């Protein structure tokens, strides 16, 4: 990480860097305005519709814990029954409901991933409703999170960068192979294998539960995409050294050494020793 930023910093100092950045900035803001503003204008009509439908769904499925207006419910002991959803944004809903975490079945340490309860349309309606409660991160566009949108010739470098970002920001909780890890108090960081790129992106954006929020100031959108590209690449890579034992590291290896190694070798020792028992009768006679 240190090395990488150093390298990037070195590039930044090149003579052309200033004008290029300026140009890029102009292009981006211009392009974004051109792309987004009419689209938003277009979707406002159905937006109010979505919000209304979303409110209905919310009242039925979510309000028992999050309150009728998503203001949150506090129980007698002052504990949060369900937190306030004001300002969590559409991305949080898309993540929570899209991975099957919400609606939570019963209050517990952590909402587990379940079968998804709503279809895509309903999820977007719920998201629209929660987004209407207060400004928050929106559901990202596909080119933001989809590694396919990285040009072919830059992909390898993006993956390497993504690996560095992943190791710096995520392995502490999610394990080096993204196979998950335990956190204090019965909480856990789940495995990231098989999670949809959009949900990975939204997780970083909204920081569910114990997970920190990786806002765009901390990890730029492209860096998030690099991480997703890295995750995909390690999922697709062959198992170089043989079976990976769940990627749980040295503890699993130790178990194999004892059971598959010493166990088998002791078995062979017993076998060898018992096979001379026959000649041992001869031996005692001799």
């Amino acid at each position, binding site marked *: *990480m240190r*090395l990488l930023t150093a390298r990037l910093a070195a590039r930044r100092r090149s003579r052309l860097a200033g004008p290029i950045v300026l140009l890029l900035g102009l292009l981006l803001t211009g392009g974004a305005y051109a792309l987004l503003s009419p689209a938003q204008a277009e979707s406002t009509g159905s937006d109010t519709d979505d919000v209304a439908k979303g409110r209905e769904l919310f009242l039925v499925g979510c309000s028992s814990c999050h309150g009728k207006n998503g203001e949150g419910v506090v129980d007698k002991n002052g504990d949060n029954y369900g937190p306030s959803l004001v300002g969590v944004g559409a991305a949080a809903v898309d993540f929570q409901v899209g991975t099957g975490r919400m609606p939570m079945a019963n209050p517990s*340490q952590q909402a587990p991933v379940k079968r998804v309860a709503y279809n895509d349309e309903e999820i977007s309606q719920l998201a629209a409703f929660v987004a209407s409660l207060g400004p928050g991160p929106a559901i990202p566009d596909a080119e933001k999170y989809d590694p396919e949108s990285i040009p072919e010739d830059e992909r*390898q*470098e993006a*993956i*390497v960068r993504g*690996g*560095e970002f992943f*190791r*710096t920001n995520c*392995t*502490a*909780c*999610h*394990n*080096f192979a993204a196979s*998950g*890890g*335990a956190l*204090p*108090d*019965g909480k*856990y*960081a789940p495995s990231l294998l098989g999670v949809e790129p959009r949900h990975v992106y939204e997780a970083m954006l909204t920081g569910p539960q114990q997970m920190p929020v990786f806002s765009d100031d901390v990890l730029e959108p492209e860096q998030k995409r690099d991480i997703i590209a890295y995750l995909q*690449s390690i999922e697709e*890579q062959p*198992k*170089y*050294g*043989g*079976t*990976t*034992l769940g*990627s749980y*590291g*040295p*503890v*699993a*290896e*130790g*178990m*194999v*050494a*004892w059971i*598959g190694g*010493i166990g088998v*070798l*002791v078995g*062979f*020792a*017993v076998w*060898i*020793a*018992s096979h*001379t028992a026959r000649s*041992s009768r001869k*031996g*005692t006679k*001799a």
Partner: protein
Amino acid sequence: MSTHAKTAAKPAKPSRVGAVANWVDERAGIATAAKKQVRKVFPDHWSFMLGEIALWSFVVLLLTGVFLSLWFKPGMGEVIYDGSYEQLRGLHMSEAYASTLEISFDVRGGLLMRQMHHWAAMLFIAAMFVHLMRVFLTGAFRKPRELNWMIGGVLLLLGILEGFAGYSLPDDLLSGTGLRIADGLVKATPIVGTYMSFFMFGGEFPGDVIVPRLYIVHVLLIPGLLLALIGAHMMLLVYQKHTQWPGPGKTEENVVGYPMLPIYAAKAGGYFFIVFGVTALLGGLVSINPVWRYGPYNPAEVTAGSQPDWYMGVAEGLLRIFPGWETEIFGVTISWNVMLPGQIFPMLILGGTLLYPFIEQWITGDKREHHLLQRPRNAPNRTAFLAAMMSLYGLLWAAGGNDILAILFNLNLNHITYFMRVAVFVIPPIVFWLTRRWCISLQRHDHEKLLHGYETGVIMRSPEGAYSERHLPISEAEAYYITAQEPEKVYELPAETDMNGVANRKARAMKLRARMSKYWFGDNVPRPTREELEAARLHAEHELAQHDPDGHQHLPAGGYTGSHELDGHPVDGHQFDGRHSVEGEELRKH
């Protein structure tokens, strides 16, 4: 065959090889020395081969290690990786890590060799452990073998250090995290800790000298020490001769088994290939230490599931469950939470292991030489102590892997820690007590078998409808095996004052010793006396004599005893075990 065979081996017909051998021998004089060794006798039992696993995996380590050292570059200088592993290509990393990646991905057979090397390392240390356990359980460490026990203990320590050094070489994220912990342990030494750490790492951690230093330690220093000590271990073994299980013809004075050549050597040689084969299979099929997934070491990074290899798991577990005790004295923080589990306890364990033979000697007062092994049940306290230690080991290893347990079994990390903090004090004593009781009841069982014979499984029903099981005397060999044990003597407390009424200054130690000795032997079931055995034998003969060779059985004069006759058919069951004739017996034909 015994070592005291008088006849020397006859020389084979001279051949070309023989001629060369002769030429060498006439100059080096090896054969005369070797002849005696070649005819050395080794007893045979599977548990005597456990040490061999360690020996052969050491050979595998040497072979694969030399292969690795041809490509490994023990440097911490920065290079840009441009090998075949895509996910890391273009990244800055140390030479050590880059060359480990090169061995894994660009050297033919390199990954196999790396994995075999690592699996062999795990097996090497595990085998030393089980070998130690065998020696411990059978009392093979007793006089005159205390020295060899201590050599074995040092070998185990060196093996663990060697493994740790090797684990640190590739300079990946886990290596570095391991070194970071080692750094913490060193720094926890009061006053001089920081100096020691700077000395070790050539400055602030991680510095750029630790890998080259560990490399020398790993390929030169410790392997050299290991070789020398293994040599000493084997020489002592040959000189003192192997211990053996008691049995007819096997005494404290002889060794019964096979000569070194050809039988023993063939078996041992064959076993090498089995160890090699198992290591190769593991190395080829099961991934170990996938350093490319960990990434290069970076002090700013850490990963969930950071664990040391299993043999360090105990230290890790101790560190993880230890409460965070610290004291501040004169502005110096003493980190008990690191010092106790990381420095003091390991030293205590090491010291206790090395000195165990002497501790036991002190308790039992047994200074005799022993060449016959003891069955684990006949030393209940020793056996139970090991069982307790094993349970402690298991608990601590589990504590070291608490995050893995939590994620695998959906447990709460904190609960595991709280549980372990209590369990390490509660479970080993329970295990101790249970094992001790178990051993003693096995002793009772032996006693029964000696005096009343073994259970034949033949159930008989009397005319009244009562059921009983027949017992038969055990074979002489088995009886010998069971009874072969020197008499035990509980240490007697000497008079507290000597003849002149002067108080004995060592009285307190002696009292402790007497109390421990009493506990040590107190509950053992005494061997049956000669008279008891004689009586039992007479009784058994008498019972057997009640059966006529014609296969019929007659009520003895004394009246009904529990063996019965129905319609003139023998019903003692022995028509099925060949003890007497079976004419006219229908069942046997089918």
